[in-house]
């Protein structure tokens, strides 16, 4: 990786005319992102080599552990176990959350009934409920799905609710003035205009879901990713432990980023050129 880094930072060093042209003409978002990532990995490598802490392996060692775990299949099987309750929990949260949130934004009765519950749920440290969930539902799949749901649902509901509330009133009046029905108003104006905030809520919900599943796997029963982290820590395989932690962080970030792309292509065609 130190070689990779040298190549990455090597580019701006040679101030050739072609480089200046490159700076002026192209979109460099990807370049700066990679550079930022390379700097982070470089700092990690240095910190691991000093070492700052005996339990902090350098980046190169962690990366090798990651490749090893990929090769022996332990990482993939751990993900297969972890993803099942995560996906179920997130799908449930997304479907119920968007439906309830949109309804709360449209109907005052739904708002009065549901808003206080979800505001309290969002403010409360829901992780504290996980032992209670285990107590009631045991250590199986149900508990893990619930752990994901209690963390993801309030964020999604409240964002959808706010999104619908913040719809441009002028667009709603426009739809009414052209005799749009209530249903057309919701489908053609409210949902598309609210979609950026709804998707922001879904992204936050998915991040919360990842927190939920990791907490569940660490607190309820060690399975999947939680098991890998716990196991490698207990036998002092720090490189493997860090590789697992880093992999779940990257996986979560990539998923959330992918959702953003999906949103732009589905609902916001005008942002395709800007994004």
């Amino acid at each position, binding site marked *: 990786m130190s070689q990779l880094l040298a190549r990455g930072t090597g580019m701006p060093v040679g101030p050739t005319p072609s480089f200046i042209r490159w700076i002026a003409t192209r979109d460099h978002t990807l370049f700066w992102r990679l550079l930022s990532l390379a700097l982070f990995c470089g700092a990690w490598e240095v910190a691991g080599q000093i070492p700052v802490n005996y339990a902090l392996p350098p980046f190169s060692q962690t990366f090798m552990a990651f490749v090893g775990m990929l090769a022996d299949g332990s990482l993939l099987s751990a993900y297969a176990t972890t993803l099942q309750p995560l996906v179920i929990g997130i799908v449930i949260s997304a479907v119920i959350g968007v439906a309830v949130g949109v309804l709360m934004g449209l109907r005052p009765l739904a708002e009065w009934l549901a808003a206080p519950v979800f505001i309290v749920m969002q403010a409360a440290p829901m992780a504290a409920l996980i032992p209670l969930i285990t107590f009631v539902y045991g250590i199986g799949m149900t508990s893990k799905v619930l752990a994901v749901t209690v963390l993801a649902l309030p964020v999604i509901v409240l964002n959808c609710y706010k999104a619908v509330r913040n719809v441009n009133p*002028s667009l709603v009046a*426009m739809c009414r003035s052209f*005799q749009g029905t209530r249903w057309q108003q919701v489908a053609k104006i409210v949902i598309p205009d609210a979609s950026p905030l709804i998707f922001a809520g879904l992204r936050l919900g998915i991040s919360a879901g990842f927190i939920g599943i990791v907490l569940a796997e660490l607190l309820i029963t060690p399975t999947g990713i939680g098991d890998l982290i716990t196991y490698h820590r207990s036998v002092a395989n720090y490189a493997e432990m860090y590789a697992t932690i880093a992999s779940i962080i990257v996986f979560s970030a990539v998923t959330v980023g992918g959702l953003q792309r999906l949103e732009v292509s589905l609902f916001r*065609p*005008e942002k395709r050129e800007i994004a």
Partner: protein
Amino acid sequence: MQAVLPRAWETPVPAKPDNIVEVRGLSKFYGSFEALKEIDLDFPRGELISLLGPSGCGKTTLLKMIAGLLQPTAGQVLVKGKPVTGPGPERAFVFQDFALMPWATVIRNVAFGLELRGMPKAQRHEIARRYIAEVGLAGFEERYPHELSGGMRQRVGLARALAVDADVLLMDEPFSAVDEQTRRKFQEDLLSLRRVQRKTFIFVTHSIEEAVYVSDRIVLLSRRPGRVSRIIEPDIPRDGTPDEIRRDRRYLDTIEDIWDGLKRFVD
């Protein structure tokens, strides 16, 4: 606030048949604030009538009640003799802030009124294309609103209102969000549009010059509560060039006259 008192308009008046919009004893309260008080107005078919007044006189409120977007506290609006209960196909609204859907192309925005009526896509796009060309935006059909200037956006809003082929166009300060040069161009375009389209325009503005320049009839509203203070029919030659009209004695006198009447409402 349901005071049902006999009013002047209930006594039989000689029927003036061609008033496309009639406003009868219209009042509007916001809580205890009286925005409009007993407005009686006739809007003859085919004319361009301006509602002019200081800010806060309720001219936009009046327009939105004619549109059916706001409910009056008392009185009623008749369009083609029928009481207004909500928005209808014989009226189309042009919004001050354009009210364009940012996620939709120009052509979808223009065709939106027809889309809501369930017209097939090919047919409504054909109609939309015609009006896009009429407002001078041919070639911009597939652009998005954020790619257009303020003036061009309002042309999209205008084309959308024209596309539904309403008899009455309700325009709420349509040119207030565009720059002065564009505004003048718009006023010319509005006048030429009037010659082509057999439509009635009800036009809200706070600009005296604009009202005098484009209107057949100007309704001056006073403030707190909003009432009709005067109705002016500017006697301005329409055959000259824009420059000649803007220098015409009668044009300038009318502006001065209106300003004298409005001065006392300015604080």
